């Protein structure tokens, strides 16, 4: 006698298995290919092991495993709930004496089974293979359990997302597309918002938001790194919670759903405007971002908004109405455009108060200032954010910040090559305030930046050597940056202490201007610490104490390029030299070019060469070009003079 209990019907399960079972089988075979088979292939062939690092079961063909995790659940949900999306089958199944809840549970339950059984079987197989192939040193039992948990939970979450979307839409293709869009949405909208706020909120640090792990908000992007980072416990709890929520939401929608919604784009009337305006907004923001970033002009930005909103609005309408002839109803588009325009105008008037907002001086606990968020983020990663804590510095930073706000017009629409100033305040109450401004290269903020940059506290933050315990240094290695093979190392304790003292004196004396102009370093200095860590810094020409110390200890000769290393030195007015040759790689042609010009000055006196060396920097576009020729022409360097630092004898020569 067939079962008459209303909550379980074997024949329905049979039907689902007959028609949709292949998805589960494909999943199983895919996992077999990606894991047990790959394990056999790798561990029976010793050569493999050397090529690939096995950290956990995900390490075997992770791309395929992850592809299966993303594609199979969506495919499964589409095929399972195809019956809701096709008119004939929808009518048939809903004419049967089975309540919608029971019907839904049968289909969802079978879907869960298709996603669970293959994983369990593979998990057991991996357990067995682990002992048979003796790969216990690569994979621990715990890692197999973690793999099983993730490979079970994550696709299940994707599956329930797809089921949920399937209840909203009436078309299978749309179900697939919308599921992936939904899974990308959290990251996508944050990226779009960050880029677009940048255009309207003076001081908004989009980079800060884009570096704050924004990619982990999208399950698709989050899962892409399972190989290196297992799902965290909070994430697992969140996924589980969302599965429950999605299940009940889907069931509720399914019960509310009209059967005749089969094959219409949106099953619920209320969803249609949300979909249309949502798509219009997202495409608008995307086009704004595209044209804003590539063209960097307000005109193009507005063009992007208009084009994007039109495309999004009418595109979404075309999907909903399943025809491309939707241009008759433009009234609502005008409402949409009007309200967006109004919001943009409100932003111009800073209605949120975002642009004018600065923290109260008394509330600031500490502040980070730098050229980009990356400096902040990197220092944070090392566990030592480079915050300024001294009240005087905080006051100076705040003054700078306020100036930037008041001079909005000057700093707002800079071009891409401008400098950035990044502020990160941490307040006494634990809140944060992040701002970022772009300032033109030749800005007039020097008087505000100078006191901050020249302060001991700031220097200690950016030069770790200043606060380092010098007794921990085992060795100092100096190697020349010029194309000559020169280097010194200091290993004697006393010499280490003395040289560090000299260096520190130079760093403390460094002016703001010198700090900004790091356009030529003689050599790189590497400090080897007794905990095997290394510190690097550059030896700038203005480090006089250090140079003097090296000279006194007869190390200067080997520590940097000197006049003796140079075979020839040529100086020519930039206008006389073929610019293309300066960037070419042919040394001979370049030397020939310099030799052939009458205006060229050849410097031969060692002392004069030394003066040129001291005042040269890496090329920009100064009036004169210097050509250093090393070792009989094997290598050359093109240089510029440091601003206003051309030696007199050269000046005299060219003024003649």
């Amino acid at each position, binding site marked *: 006698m*067939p*079962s*008459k209990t*209303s909550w379980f*019907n*074997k*024949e*329905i399960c*049979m*039907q689902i298995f*007959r*028609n949709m079972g292949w998805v589960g089988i494909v999943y199983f075979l895919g996992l077999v290919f990606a894991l047990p088979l790959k394990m056999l292939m790798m561990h029976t062939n010793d050569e493999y092991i050397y090529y690939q690092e096995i950290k956990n079961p995900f390490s075997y063909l992770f791309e395929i495993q992850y592809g299966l995790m993303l594609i199979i659940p969506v495919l499964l949900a589409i095929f399972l709930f195809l019956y809701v999306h096709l008119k*004939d*089958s929808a*009518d*048939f199944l*809903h*004419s*049967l*004496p*089975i*309540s*919608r809840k029971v019907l839904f549970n049968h289909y969802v339950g079978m879907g869960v089974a298709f996603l669970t059984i293959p994983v369990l079987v593979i998990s057991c197989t991996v357990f067995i293979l682990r002992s048979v192939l003796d790969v216990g040193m690569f994979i621990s039992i715990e890692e197999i359990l973690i793999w099983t948990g993730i490979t079970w939970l994550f696709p299940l979450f994707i599956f329930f997302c797809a089921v949920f979307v399937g209840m909203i839409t009436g078309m299978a293709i749309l179900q697939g597309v919308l599921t992936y869009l939904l899974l990308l949405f959290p990251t996508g909208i944050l990226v779009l918002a960050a880029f677009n706020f940048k255009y309207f909120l003076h001081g908004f640090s989009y980079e800060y938001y884009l570096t704050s792990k924004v990619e982990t908000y999208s399950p698709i992007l989050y899962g892409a790194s399972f190989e290196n980072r297992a799902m965290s416990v909070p994430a697992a709890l969140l996924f589980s919670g969302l599965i429950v929520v999605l299940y009940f939401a889907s069931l509720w929608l399914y019960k509310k759903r*009209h*059967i*005749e919604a089969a094959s*219409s784009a949106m099953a619920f009337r209320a969803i249609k405007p949300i979909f249309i305006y949502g798509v219009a907004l997202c495409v608008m923001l995307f086009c704004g971002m595209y044209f804003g970033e590539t063209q960097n002009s307000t005109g193009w930005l507005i063009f992007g908004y208009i084009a994007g909103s039109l495309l999004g609005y009418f595109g979404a309408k075309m999907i909903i109405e399943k025809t491309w002839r939707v241009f008759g109803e433009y009234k609502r588009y005008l409402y949409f455009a009007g309200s967006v325009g109004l919001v943009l105008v409100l932003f111009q008037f800073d209605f949120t108060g975002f642009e004018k907002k600065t923290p109260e001086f008394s509330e600031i606990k500490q502040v980070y200032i730098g050229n980009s968020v990356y400096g902040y983020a990197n220092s944070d990663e090392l566990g030592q954010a480079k915050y300024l804590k001294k009240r005087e510095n905080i006051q100076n930073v705040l003054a700078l910040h306020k100036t930037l706000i008041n001079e909005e017009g000057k700093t707002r629409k800079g071009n891409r090559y401008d400098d950035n100033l990044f502020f990160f305040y941490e307040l006494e109450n634990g809140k944060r305030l992040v701002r970022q401004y772009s300032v033109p290269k030749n800005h007039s903020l020097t008087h505000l930046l100078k006191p901050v940059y020249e302060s001991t506290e700031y220097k200690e933050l950016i030069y770790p050597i200043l606060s380092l315990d010098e007794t921990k240094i085992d060795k100092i290695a100096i190697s020349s940056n010029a194309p000559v093979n020169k280097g010194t190392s200091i290993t004697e304790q006393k010499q280490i202490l003395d040289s560090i003292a000299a260096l520190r004196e130079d760093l403390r004396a460094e002016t703001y201007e010198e700090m900004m102009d790091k356009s030529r370093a003689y050599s790189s200095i590497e400090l080897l610490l007794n905990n095997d860590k290394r510190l690097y810094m550059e030896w700038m020409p203005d480090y006089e104490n250090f140079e003097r110390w090296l000279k006194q200890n007869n190390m200067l000769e080997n520590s940097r390029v000197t006049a003796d290393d140079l075979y020839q030195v040529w100086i020519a007015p930039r206008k006389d030299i073929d610019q293309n040759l300066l960037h070419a790689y042919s040394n001979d042609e370049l030397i020939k070019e310099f030799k052939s010009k009458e205006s060229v000055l050849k410097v031969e006196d060692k002392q004069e060469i030394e003066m040129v060396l001291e005042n040269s920097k890496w090329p920009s576009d100064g009036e004169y070009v210097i050509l250093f020729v090393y070792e009989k022409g094997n290598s050359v360097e093109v240089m510029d003079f440091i601003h206003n630092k051309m030696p007199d004898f050269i000046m005299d020569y060219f003024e003649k």
Partner: protein
Amino acid sequence: MIECKEAYKKYEGNEAVQSVDLLVKQGSIYGLLGSNGAGKTTLLKIVAGILKQDKGDVLIDGTPVFENVDMKKKIIFLPDTPYFFSQYTLRTMANFYSSIYPDWNEDRFQNLQGIFEIEMDKKLHKFSKGMRRQAAFWLAFSAMPDVLIMDEPFDGLDPVIRKKIKNLMVQDVAEREMTVLISSHNLREVEDICDHVGILHKGSVLLEKDLDDLKSDVHKIQVAFKNEPREEWHQEMKILQYERRGSVWLCVVRGKELEVKSYFEKYNPVIFDMLPLTLEEIFIYEMGEVGYAIENILV
């Protein structure tokens, strides 16, 4: 048995069913007639519990049908294109039905093999349209429903099978008081089995009639008078239509046979014949009276 009270349904923006009142008694065969787009299918799907009406009540045995599992166990809905699971044979489909419908009669299913000539173990989707429809009937009759709802059921069936199915249906109605609701766009297709008909036009019921009453109430009469009566003679009787061919009048009259006879005899007719009227003619006259041209339902 089946009862619609002011049922209303909007379907893809159209008012497919507007305030329909309908009553089908137990053990009767009700023909729902209407041209394409009249709302027949929508109404049937509401009665079958597939769609939910937006307003009004749809009751079977006094209880609402929608999501009523116990009630739906006794209802079979046959859509205009029968649906079967892909890859299913008649046998596996029958297993499915037997697990779903508690009154499934396996003996009857086996016996019906003599009537329908379908291979049981061949995949149903390989059959022709007519064969699939036969399979659907086979399954429906084996499920022993109390209510059978059919949407254009005889399309694509040959006359022999049509006859057999009609016989089976009438037999079930007679033996176990099955209630049948059939939709059709063609009166002739159903006039031989229906005892009641309703005409659905643009979402509402124009007319609902007992066919026997209808047949006995409308008469076609050929009459000629020796002495022509006064102009107003036909105004005293309910004459639906009349025309004169020479001295002979041709009238369609509503009323009981005897009353009609005695009325005409007052005028001493030279010729008086009562001619049989086809159902189709009755409808045309009836509808003409209501003022609608719906001939296309009836051809």
